[in-house]
Structure formats: C-alpha cells, structure tokens
C-alpha cells in the first residue's frame, strides 16, 4: 500500500480566547436581517462599511475571526505569511494583490432559457453586496476596482430545463476586476455554468443568492490558457430550505485560486460542494472553501479530488467548516483526496472543522494524499490490462466521482475528454 494519509484537522475553535457576546467582530456591518441572531458576516444593502476580525479578543486562527471588508485599505499588504496566503506564490499573482485592477475584464456572454434575465449593472446596483463581503485582499481589490457587474436572475418558481451558460473569455493580460451576481429567486431551480477561458489576469467576485426554497447548481470551470492568473471568490448565501450545489473544476491556468463559501441564513438549507483539479508541471491550483453553519438544522457535504503530475505541480486545499453555537442540528462532512501521479508534485490538504456546539447531527472530515494504490493496478493488470491503460482507468475513475455530480451530459463529456487529455500528457 502506498497511501499516505494526513490528518491535519483541528477540531473545535481555539479555546484560549472565547467569543464574547456582543463583541462579535462583524458587529458594525450587520444588516438588520442578520443582526437577528446570526453572527455570520453576511452583507446587506446597508452593509457596505467594513468590519474587522482578527482584532483584540478574536483569534485569527478561527475562521469566525477572519477580517471581512469591502474596502481594500482595510487589508494589509500581503507578505505571504498570512494564514490564508501561506501556500500561494504571491509573485505569480501578477499584481492582483498589489496593483490597481484597471485592465479590460474578460467578456461575459450569457445564454440560456429566455425566462432568465441578464443585466449589466453599475456598482451601485442594490443587489451588489448582498451575498458577501470580501474576505481577503485580492477579493477586496476587485471590489474596489470593478467597473460594472453582470446580474443573472432565475425568476421565482421557474425551473430551467437547460443550463444557463456564462462564458467568461479573457482577452487581455492586464490585471482586471470582475463581478458577477447570480440570483436564484424563491422556489426556482437551475444550473448555471461559469466557463472561464482564454488568457486573463483577473480577480473575480461572484455573489450567489439562493432564496428560500430555491435549488441552484453552480458549476465553475477554469479551463484557462497556460498564462492565466485567476482568483475567484464565490460567496453564496443560502435561504430557508434552499439548496446549493457548487462544483468547481480547475484544469488550466498558471495560478488559479478559487475560494467558494456557503453561508446558511435560515434553517433547512443544504450545501453540496464538489471540486476537481488536475495540476500539471508548474501549475498552482488552490482551493479554499468555507461553510458557515450559522443557523440550525442545515446540511453540508464537501468532496474535492485532485490529481497532480509533473515537477512543481502544486495543489492546495483548505476546507474551513464552522459550526457556530446557534447551529444546532448541523450535519456536515468534508473530504479531500489527492492522487500524486509523479514525483515532484505537491499537495497541501488542510481540513479545519470548528465546532462550537455539541448539539449536532454529525460532523466529520477526511483528507488523504497518496500515490496510486498498487492493489488497484494489480487487479486491473491481472486481467490483462496493460499498465498505462490501467493507470488511466484508475485516475479517470478517481476523478469520475466528481464529474458524475455535474449531471449535464455535454459538460460531463467535455470534462472526461479534458481529463483524458491531461492523462495523455503523463505518458510523455
């Protein structure tokens, strides 16, 4: 057996510095809705000031203590020592963290059923800022600099039979800012696919609002050219009995850092978050997700799988799951699995599960990084299958578990082919 299992999870918030009632770090930016009891840093129309975390009395190492702000100035310049940047090669961000993002943003073309509304709006649109507040400097930099946003709305009670495609095509390598808002109104049902392609250096904020009873699938595909640099903060706010399925696939680009978050705002919500990444030589693919169980009786399930091959292929997965004190009845599980196909590749995998209440249904995590299981190979080869074919079968099978979640046949096919293409590179 060659499996190397790493369990770096930290369970429970650091207890040395307890939270003090009434002194939550987000206090000053809470909208009236959220002030009702939720401590999550949820934005609202009136919430465009800033909030501080990591301040006095708030342990920076707890996810609850993370600084959130719409203002770039609130975030200190990055040094690379920060907890959430320690794995990222800052130099390769090509200025996303340090420069004014004034380049031409990738073009956005939306296609889908005609009932869907698509709007290009200015910065002051009331929907902007409803699903989240930037949680890091690169996201805040995009917020500070974006010129306009695209808002895609699935009208209430509408069930889309075909997917909504949002084609995001990069055409310039000047650092740029992008902003998208996806609103799934009450009881609607839809699949929205974000296709990121071309060449770009872009920091993107995606706000996802899943209203009460809605069921939304967001599939974000990063199939950039080799020179692309992409940071994408995708923050979702999930309403009562609403369901979000978020599927992230990163294949192309020099550095791609996706930070999806799911915040429950009312009971009965459900979040499924899946991820697939395939890092080749020199590529840095990073994914940091956050599930904020801020209210009772919500469910979340996270599974990210990655394959790595080639010198200096680097993947990072950090899964922060926070079960706040008021989130009784929570049921959550998160797992990350990495398959190292060659020497010289590196995967960092860190599950963080913080539990502030004992009254939960379940909470678990798993993380494993290893080489291909010799027993799998032996079984297939003992049936006459040559080694290279057997290896491909195993990797394809490993990643298939995520592809099967997409359930849009055309995309599943395309990704299967893309994975085949990556695998063909291994043989050289």
């Amino acid at each position, binding site marked *: 057996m060659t499996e190397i299992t790493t369990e770096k999870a930290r369970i429970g918030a650091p207890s040395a510095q307890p939270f003090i009632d009434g002194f939550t770090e987000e206090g000053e930016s809470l909208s009236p809705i959220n002030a009702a009891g939720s401590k999550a840093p949820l934005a609202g129309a009136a919430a465009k000031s800033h909030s501080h975390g990591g301040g006095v009395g708030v342990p920076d190492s707890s996810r609850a203590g993370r600084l959130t702000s719409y203002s770039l100035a609130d975030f200190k310049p990055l040094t690379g020592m920060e907890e959430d940047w320690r794995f990222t090669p800052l130099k390769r961000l090509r200025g996303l963290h340090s420069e004014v993002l004034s380049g031409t943003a990738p073009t956005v073309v939306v296609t889908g059923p005609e009932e869907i509304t698509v709007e290009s709006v200015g910065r002051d649109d009331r929907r902007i800022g409803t699903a989240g507040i930037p949680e890091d400097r690169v996201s805040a930099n995009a917020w500070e600099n974006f010129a306009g946003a695209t808002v895609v709305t699935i009208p209430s009670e509408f069930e889309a039979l075909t997917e909504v495609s949002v084609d995001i095509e990069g055409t310039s390598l000047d650092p740029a800012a992008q902003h998208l808002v996806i609103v799934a109104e009450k009881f609607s049902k839809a699949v929205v696919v974000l296709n990121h392609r071309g060449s770009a250096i872009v920091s993107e904020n995606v706000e996802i609002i899943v209203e009460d009873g809605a069921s939304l699938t967001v599939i974000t595909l990063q199939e950039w050219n080799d020179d692309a640099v992409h940071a994408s903060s995708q923050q979702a706010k999930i309403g009562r009995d609403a369901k979000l399925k978020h599927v992230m696939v990163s294949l192309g680009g020099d550095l791609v850092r996706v930070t999806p978050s799911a915040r429950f705002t009312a009971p009965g919500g459900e979040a499924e978050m899946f991820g697939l990444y395939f890092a080749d030589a020199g590529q840095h693919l990073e994914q940091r997700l956050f599930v904020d169980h801020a209210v009772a009786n919500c469910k979340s399930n996270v599974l990210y799988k990655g394959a790595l091959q080639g010198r200096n292929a680097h993947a990072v997965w950090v899964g922060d799951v926070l079960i706040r004190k008021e989130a009784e009845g929570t049921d959550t599980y998160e797992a990350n699995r990495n398959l190292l196909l060659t020497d010289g590749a590196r995967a960092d995998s860190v599950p963080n599960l913080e539990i502030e209440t004992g009254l939960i249904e379940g909470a678990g995590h798993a993380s494993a990084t290893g080489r291909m299981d010799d027993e*799998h190979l032996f079984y297939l080869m*003992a049936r006459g299958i040559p080694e290279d*074919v057997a290896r491909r079968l195993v990797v394809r099978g*490993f990643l298939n578990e995520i592809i099967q979640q997409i359930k849009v046949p055309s995309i599943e096919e395309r990704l299967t082919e893309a994975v085949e293409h990556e695998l063909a590179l291994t043989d050289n």
Partner: protein
Amino acid sequence: MSTLEIKDLHVSIETEQGTKEILKGVSLTIRTGETHAIMGPNGSGKSTLASTIAGHPRYNVTSGSITLDGEDVLEMSVDERARAGVFLAMQYPVEVPGVSMTNFLRTAKTAIDGEAPKLRTWTKDVKAAMEQLRIDADFAQRNVNEGFSGGEKKRVEILQLELFKPKFAILDETDSGLDVDALKVVSEGVNRAHAEGKMGTLLITHYTRILRYIKPDFVHVFVDGQVVEEGGPELADRLEEEGYDRYAKGAGAAAAPAVAQA
C-alpha cells in the same frame, strides 16, 4: 494442450522484521483438463503461491521457476501473464472506485484477445453469464467490486473466468464466505468453464466443502510453504475427517514420507 509447471519455487517477502521466506520449494505441474486442489491451514502460503503465479510485486521469487508451455512466466509482467492465459480469482477482490464493471470487462477482454469484442455478441455473452451466476443486471453499471458483498465479489470473479476463457484458472478460496446456494452457483460456473476442455484449474481451499461440487483429480496438502502430501480425491476425504493436525509443524516435515515431489 497446455502445461503450467512450477519447479522448486522459493518465495520471500519483505516485512518490517526483515526478509521472510514463505514458499520453501514448491513443485507442481498442471495440464489442460486437470483440476488440482491445494489444501492447507491458514498461513501456509496458499495465497502466496497464487499471487506469485499472477505476478504480484510484493512476492520475490528467490529461486525456482514457473513456465507456461515452456515460456518463462517469471519474466512476464502481470498483464502479460494474464494475456498468456493465467487467471487468478482472488481471495479478496479489490474495489476499483469510479471504474464501471462494463468498462472494465470490455477493456480487459479487448486486452486479452488483442481486439475489441463484437459489441452485440459481447453484450449478450455478458448478460447470459451474469444470469447464470445470478448476478443482478444492475451490477454492470456499478463500479468494480465497490460495495459488493463477499459472495458477490466471488461471483464476479467467476464471471470474469467465464468471459475471459483462460488456459489456467487459479481460484484462491473462491468458496470462502459463500452460503450453500452461492457455492453451488459458483461451482457450476467453474465446471462450465472446465467443460469446454481448454482449461486447467488450481483450486485453493481451506475446506473440503467445495470439493463436493468441483471434483479434483489431484489433491496437494500444503503446510508451512511446502507440499507435504499428495494424492487423489480420497485424500480430501481423509482431510475432512482428520483435519490438518497431523501435519502440525515439525511433525509435518518428519512424518511426510509422502512428499512425492522429487
């Protein structure tokens, strides 16, 4: 007519405590049409013999030989051995996540035959073989061995035996974990494959139960990495009554004038 010949085979494995010799000179010849039963207590090295023939990398052959019609099997890679006609039904079949049975069976068949099977007849063959082994049709869509019960895994091993049509089948405790009905179904599968007259069988078992359904021509008693006694089917009956006690370590080697291998 083919011959699988094992001569004075010594096999060791690397353990944390160092090198450990498990097979201590095993010789065995199997020809097409013959069924050989290997019986022995737990830990005697039966699976080691089976896995070594199939080429599992954990086992190091330190001396001796294995040939198939004169060809050096030990020189072949695992997949080459399978394509040469060696099939191992494993004691603990491995789950391969994300790889569907359908895809797996077709890929293996293509590799073994050197060409893709004709889709229509192949689908029909698979369906028929599954029915005979009482395997539910929906297993074709499931991932290889994933979530199969012990008995289901064994049936699927025999399914492969019937579909791949090897020259030599090595069945490593295919009977263990099966209830009587399943044992019958599985034995019938082996007997069907055997009846085509193109296969030799090495049946590894701990119990005599399966020998009521699959009749061996030869029985070899395996103790501590060696064959300590050999005979016809009647030897199995004696083992049924007396167990392996009389071959107890030490006593075994000494009281084994019947070590017929020479």
